[in-house]
Every structure is written in structure tokens, then in C-alpha cells.
């Protein structure tokens, strides 16, 4: 810690002993199933998401091998349809957002200066639902019933007439199931960031990563319902004979597209905004100066989030909608790029005005800058209706979104892993290994996806299991496939660097990079309670200002900062971070796991058409939730004490 700790050292020791007793960590199977600790859950999300990334990536290698030459027959068209649908669906729903939620779960309480998320049991529940939904979605492949209508599932192809088998039932119900987890996670992030910040952390002192994930969470709250509506309607049309999308009985197939893209466009920003937040954590640290134009970066994040709800028709420019509609959405789609541009300028300015240290996390972040700008440029091209109508449904689109998704999300995630690895695991990674991993991955990535721009401009359609020779597509297909193998090597090396670190990495200090935010004040890895003393935050960079750092030691004698009376956190006010009351937090419990298991049973029952079993499972869930929310403690045993005696809570 700091020099001032020497006078407070005995008090700190006493405080630590008292607090750790209230924050035990249970090991073994029981601990695994019952834990509500945000760090364990966050790591779990990241590991599980990484597993889905590997599965989906292997899937993609099969796709690329099939597409290396014209008229290949490595896989049948039916299998190809399942593989490419699963690739997109898994990457977007089971890798990207859960991985970022994993980062958020681990880092939010640490960055905010508290000890757990606002709703610890909901956090655990969200994880179990996520992994169950992933098992349903990916496991269906074993039965040949994996979703096969593309990740975007357009009707009427996915309706009852043309997709009579159960594949798209798995899709619609699987995504409805997953949506519960995503929404729960989002609500948790918002409420934690609103109410559990350290004293003094006003909104203007909240780290950019937290802003990014909070804006994302608000987007989830509003963007998932259109998807849920669409999936419910699709399932009803398929299973119960309704006619939402059936033009023969007054329905409308384009309704699916509107509902899907009303979700789908915000979703890409749901993926990208937390990743931009990771970059905003790395660039200032490795430029040795605070982020340039913090307020503008925050406003840009919010603006991107809001405007992203007004551009969805740019995915439908070739559907035959009225000209006026195309004009509006084209203009909106150009405007939505401006806030992202502001963020890019902020990072560049931060680097120009600082002293750049090109350590491994920064290298990956620089890769992101290059790739995301390239992807963003092709994105703006799509905003122009005339260009879009020529290249829609071609490989140019595939190139674009892989640049923004791989470049804009995966590269920052890997950067974030290298950056916070010491904090997550207590180990350092090899600098040489990380550098090799970067160059192999970055080269492989560009070699895989750049040729797709050319294929697209040469007219190659997307979503095809093979293609004819003689169009000039084959050579680029071969280059792209070879690139994908190089990319795979790069990613394996990256994984190898992390595995090597776990087995032989040097132990990490609390703050290996000289970071600015509070997570670097905790141990590597943090103790279960995160902080023995809840700090008082005096600036946007608490680790770089003396008063905030001193508060760790100074608060050792203050009961309202040590919070050792129970399993407690400090609740503070929404805008200014003024202390309000102590909040007793739930401890380890099996109820979230059991409730999620009941939900899984219900979902499987619905898929199989066993509706009475599903109803029984719903009742079991309701009982689980009731048990969870029941006020077990008698009110006389005051669970939460107001601090600083504010006015009567009205």
C-alpha cells in the first residue's frame, strides 16, 4: 500500500482479521455449486465463454475448409447450415456477451470499491442459466437438431412449412432461455453501479469500463424484448399454428425482420461497447496519463447506445421498404458512427499526449484500433443505400462484421485478459509469448478476413455451402482458409501463454502495470472481501491520487468503512456516492442452482412438447424464487444499519 500504512498497520491487521471472518470461501463441490462470490462467477463466465469460443472456432475451421476451393464436398449442405448457424449464434450469444459479462462480474465490485454485486444470488442464477442454455443450443448438434436457419432466422424459411423439424424450435426456445440470464446480468450491473460505489465516487468519477457496461446493460433491458417477442411468435407459429408471420392468413414475414433487427443492431453495440470500455482501461494506463476528454467518451458511449436503436433498417435495405424509410435510416446509420469516432480520437489523443509503453495488453489494444477502424469504414459504406444494395448478402458483409466483431470485441477481450490476468489469477504472463501470440493472431485474422472483401465485391454470396469456379472467388477462398489456419495457430499460442502462466508464471504484485482504478488496490488475486477498508474516492484516478490511496489506511479504525459486523457492503447514493447505509449481503446458497435446474427441465419439456412437465417445472421455479426472496430473518434483527444517520427513509 502507501507509506501512511505504517502508523495504521496494527489497525489494518485487526480489521482484516475481523472482515475475512465474515467473507469465507467454501471449496469443493458444495462451494462450487453454492457460491455467490462475483469473482468466482466472473471467472466461470469467462472460462465457459472461452470454451464456446473454441467450439465455435473449430466449427468455423470446418466451414473455411469446406469453402477453400469451389465445389468442395467436405460437409453436406444440411450439416453446413447447422454449422454456420451455430457458429454465428454461439459466437454472438454464448461467447461475446458472456465473456464481457464475465469481465464485468469480476471487475465491477473491484473498480467501484465494494465487495460484491448488488444481487449476488441473481448473479449465480444468471451463470447457471447461461451454461444450461449453451448446452441446449450446442448439444442439439449431437442429435442433428442444431439451429439451421442462420443466426438471424428469417421467416418463412424458419417457419413451420419450410423448417418442419425441431431445429428452429431449439433456436427460439434456446434464445428465450438465454435471454433470462442476459437480462438478469444487465440488471445486476446497473444496480451495482448505481448503489454500491465507494464513498466519493460520483458519476463523474466512475471508470469508463463501468460506464460502457452500464450503457450496455440498459441496452440489453430494451433490446432483448423485441428478440423475445420475435422468438415467441416464431415458436407459436411453428408449434401452435398461429399466423404472426404467415402472409396467407394476414401475417407479415417482414415483421420478423423488424423485430429481429430492432434487437440485432443494438446487440452489436452491446458487444462492442464493453470492449471499448476495456480499451479505455488499457490505453490510459499504458500511456501513463488519464484518458483524454473523459466526459466526451462517456457521452459518446451513451449516445452510441441510444442512437443504435434507431438504425435497424440498414439491415433491410434490400427488402423493398419505402424510399423515405431508407433515407431516414441511412442518415441515422451515418450519424451513429460519429460517437464511436469521438472515442477513437480520445484514445489517439491520450497516446499522443502520453508516453506509450508498448507492453502486451497495449499491443493487442493497438491491433484493435487498426482492425476496428477498418471494420468501421466498411460499416459506413453500408450506410449508403446504393452501396448496400449492391453488396448486401455478399461476402463483403461477412468481411465487415468480422473486422468489427473480431477486431472490435475479440482483440480487446484478449487485451483485457492480458491486462487483468495478474488480478484474476495472481500470475504474470510471458511478454515474449504474448507478443508472438499477438502477431500470429493479428496476421492470421487479416489473412482470413481481408480477402472476403474482394470476394464480396466480385459477387460471391454469403451463407452458401459451396460455390462454382470460374468467378475468381476460389483463389481468395484458399487464401482466406490458409489465413484461418494461421489464426487458429495464433489463438492456440495465446491459450498456451495463459496456460503456461497458470502453471509456471511468476507471482504477480497487486499493481503490476501502475493502473489508475481501484481494482489495482486489491491483492492479486483479491481476497474474498476485496477490500479490508472501503476507500473514499477523490478523483477519477484513485490509484494515482494520494488522498484516495491514504483512505485505505485511514479508514481502518472506522466501523463504517471496515464493515465487519456481518457480510456487509456500503450502499451509497446514485449520483454523488454519498454513504447511505450498510447493506447485509446474501451468502452462499444452492437455491439459484436449483431454480436454474428447474428452468432447464422446463425448457427441455417445452421443446419435447411435454407441457404438463413444463408447467410443473414452472411451479418448481416459482417455489425456488419464492424461497430465495422470502424474508427469512425476523425484522427485529436489524439487517442493515443506516450510516451517517440520514433523514428517515420515506
Amino acid at each position, binding site marked *: 500500500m502507501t507509506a501512511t500504512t505504517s502508523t495504521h498497520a496494527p489497525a489494518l491487521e485487526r480489521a482484516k482479521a475481523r472482515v475475512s471472518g465474515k467473507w469465507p470461501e467454501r471449496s469443493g463441490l458444495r462451494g462450487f455449486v453454492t457460491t455467490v462470490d462475483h469473482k468466482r462467477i466472473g471467472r466461470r463466465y469467462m472460462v465457459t465463454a472461452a470454451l464456446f469460443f473454441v467450439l465455435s472456432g473449430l466449427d468455423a475451421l470446418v466451414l473455411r475448409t469446406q469453402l477453400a476451393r469451389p465445389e468442395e464436398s467436405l460437409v453436406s449442405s444440411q450439416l453446413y447450415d447447422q454449422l454456420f448457424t451455430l457458429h454465428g449464434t454461439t459466437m454472438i450469444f454464448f461467447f461475446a456477451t458472456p465473456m464481457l459479462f464475465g469481465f464485468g462480474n469480476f471487475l465491477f465490485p473491484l473498480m467501484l470499491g465494494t465487495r460484491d454485486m448488488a444481487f449476488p444470488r441473481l448473479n449465480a442464477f444468471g451463470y447457471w442459466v447461461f451454461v444450461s442454455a449453451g448446452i441446449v443450443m450446442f448439444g442439439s448438434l449431437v442429435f442433428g437438431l442444431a439451429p439451421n436457419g442462420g443466426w438471424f432466422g428469417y421467416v418463412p424459411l424458419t417457419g413451420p412449412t419450410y423448417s418442419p423439424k425441431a431445429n428452429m424450435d431449439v433456436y427460439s426456445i434456446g434464445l428465450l432461455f438465454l435471454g433470462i440470464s442476459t437480462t438478469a446480468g444487465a*440488471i445486476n450491473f446497473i444496480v451495482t453501479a448505481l448503489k454500491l460505489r465507494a464513498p466519493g465516487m460520483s458519476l463523474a468519477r466512475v471508470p469508463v469500463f463501468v460506464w460502457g457496461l452500464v450503457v450496455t446493460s440498459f441496452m440489453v433491458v430494451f433490446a*432483448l424484448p*423485441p428478440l423475445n*417477442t420475435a422468438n415467441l411468435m416464431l415458436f407459436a407459429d411453428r408449434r401452435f399454428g*398461429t399466423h404472426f408471420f404467415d402472409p396467407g392468413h394476414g401475417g407479415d414475414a417482414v415483421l420478423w425482420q423488424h423485430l429481429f433487427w*430492432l434487437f440485432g443492431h443494438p446487440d452489436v453495440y452491446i458487444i462492442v461497447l464493453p470492449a471499448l470500455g476495456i480499451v479505455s482501461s488499457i490505453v490510459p494506463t499504458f500511456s501513463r496519463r488519464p484518458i483524454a476528454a473523459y466526459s466526451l467518451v462517456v457521452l459518446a458511449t451513451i449516445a452510441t447506445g441510444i442512437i443504435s436503436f434507431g438504425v435497424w433498417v440498414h439491415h433491410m435495405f434490400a427488402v423493398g421498404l419505402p424510399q423515405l424509410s431508407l433515407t431516414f435510416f441511412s442518415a441515422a446509420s451515418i450519424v451513429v458512427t460519429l460517437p464511436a469516432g469521438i472515442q477513437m480520437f480520445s484514445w489517439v489523443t491520450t497516446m499522443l499526449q502520453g508516453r506509450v509503453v508498448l507492453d502486451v495488453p497495449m499491443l493487442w489494444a493497438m491491433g484493435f484500433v487498426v482492425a476496428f477502424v477498418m471494420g468501421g469504414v466498411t460499416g459506413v459504406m453500408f450506410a449508403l443505400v446504393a452501396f448496400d444494395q449492391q453488396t448486401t448478402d455478399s461476402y463483403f458483409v461477412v468481411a465487415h462484421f468480422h473486422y468489427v466483431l473480431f477486431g472490435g470485441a475479440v482483440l480487446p477481450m484478449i487485451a483485457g485478459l492480458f491486462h487483468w490476468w495478474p488480478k484474476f489469477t495472481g500470475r504474470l504472463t510471458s511478454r515474449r509469448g504474448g507478443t508472438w501470440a499477438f502477431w500470429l493472431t493479428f496476421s492470421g485474422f487479416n489473412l482470413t478476413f481481408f480477402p472476403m472483401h474482394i470476394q464480396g465485391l466480385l459477387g460471391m454470396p454469403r451463407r452458401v455451402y459451396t460455390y462454382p469456379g470460374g468467378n475468381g472467388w476460389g483463389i481468395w477462398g484458399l487464401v482466406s482458409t490458409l489465413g484461418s489456419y494461421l489464426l487458429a495457430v495464433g489463438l492456440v499460442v495465446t491459450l498456451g501463454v495463459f496456460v503456461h502462466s497458470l502453471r509456471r508464471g511468476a507471482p504477480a504484485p497487486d499493481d503490476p502495470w501502475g493502473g489508475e482504478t481501484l481494482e489495482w488496490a486489491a491483492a492479486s488475486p483479491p481476497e474474498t472481501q476485496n477490500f479490508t477498508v472501503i476507500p473514499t474516492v477523490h478523483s477519477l484516478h484513485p490509484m494515482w491520487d494520494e488522498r484516495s490511496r491514504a483512505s485505505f489506511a485511514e479508514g481502518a479504525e472506522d466501523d463504517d468503512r471496515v464493515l465487519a459486523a456481518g457480510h456487509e457492503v456500503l450502499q451509497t*447514493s446514485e449520483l454523488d456516492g454519498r454513504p447511505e447505509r450498510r447493506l447485509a449481503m446474501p451468502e452462499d446458497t444452492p437455491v439459484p442452482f436449483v431454480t436454474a435446474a428447474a428452468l432447464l427441465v422446463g425448457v427441455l419439456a417445452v421443446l419435447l412438447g411435454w407441457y404438463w412437465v413444463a408447467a410443473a417445472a414452472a411451479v418448481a421455479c416459482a417455489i425456488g424464487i419464492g424461497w430465495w426472496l422470502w424474508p427469512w430473518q425476523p425484522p427485529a434483527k*436489524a439487517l442493515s444499519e443506516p450510516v451517517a444517520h440520514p433523514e428517515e*427513509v420515506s
Partner: protein
Amino acid sequence: MSALREAPDAVTDAQALTVEAPVGRPTGQWGMFLFVATEATFFACLLASYFYVRFSHGGDWPPDGISDPKLLKPAIMTALLLLSSGPMIVADHAIRHGRPRLTAVMMPITVLLGLAFLVLQLSEYSEKLKEFTPQTDSYGSLFYVITGFHGLHVFIGLVMVTVTEVAALLGKFTAGRHERVRMVSIYWHFVDVVWIAIVASLYLAPHLRG
């Protein structure tokens, strides 16, 4: 690390703390607000789909010779649901001012009114199903799914109020600890407001010829 020039510390200086500040909301309330926001968005999507299908359909609405929805039952259902919010408001107010017995009397009134709403809805369904079903056409699909999901939310709300009532009867709530009553109340009012939107869209709007 270079010492950063710090701005005057509005939040943590002693001077700031002597001014009384409004106390924020408990975490559970924010959680319920956000849950209600996402569910409300879901109903907004359903209603938007209703209007989208209606206007892209053109022609008569309801289509296929289905008669305009009758207004008597929905009017009574609206009155029942709106009235049922009153007792919840009183229940919440009562527990905050140390009157747990009043709270325990008010919540069952809400439950009864809510049950009456559901009974009327079922009776309306049994009448309407003779004329059209969810499988008849898109109008049928939309009508039953929208009103059906609302009814499901009413049912869930009644379960929540009932469980809260049981907790109240067991003496779990006092003036110092009563958050749950307000949270359930927020959900109940949301269910109310959604009904008004549904009545306007599905029942009143077809009668507006223009």
C-alpha cells in the same frame, strides 16, 4: 506517478456533508424498476406488432368478418384493475407508517379484484373462442397472445401479492423493513398500466374508423 492537480472536492469535503441530501432508492426498487422496464418493452413490442400487422393488412380490421370487440366486459375489467391499485398504494403507505394490520387487510382486496379480472377475462375468452381462435388468422393470434400474456402477468402479480400478504401476516414487515411491499406494488401498477394500453389498442382502436 505525477501528482495530479485535484479539483475542489464537492462530494467528500466536510462542508458538502453538512448540507442535507435526498436519500436514494434501495437496490431492490431499482431492480424492480428495471425488470418492469424490460417487461413493458416486451408489451410495447407486442402492441407495435399488432399495429404493424393491422396497417400492413389494409382492409377491414378485425379482418375475415370477425366482429368489432365488444366493450362492456373490458370496461368492467379496466375498472376492476384500476381500483385494485388503490389498496396496494394504501398497503405500502400503511407499512411505512407503522400500521402493519392495515397493510394485511388491504392486499387481499387487491387479490380479490385481480381474481375478478381474470374470471372476466376467461369468460370473455369462452365467448370469443366461438367466433375466432389464435389459429384463425393473424388477428386471432395477436389478440389471444397479447391479452393472454397480460393475463399471465396479472396471475404472477397475484401470486406475488399473496406471498407478500402471507409474509405480512407472519409479522415480517415493520416500519423499518418493508421494501418488498413497495416492490410488489410497483409491479402491480405496471400490470395496470399495460392493461390500459391494451384496452386502447385492441378494444377501442378498432372502433375508430378514419
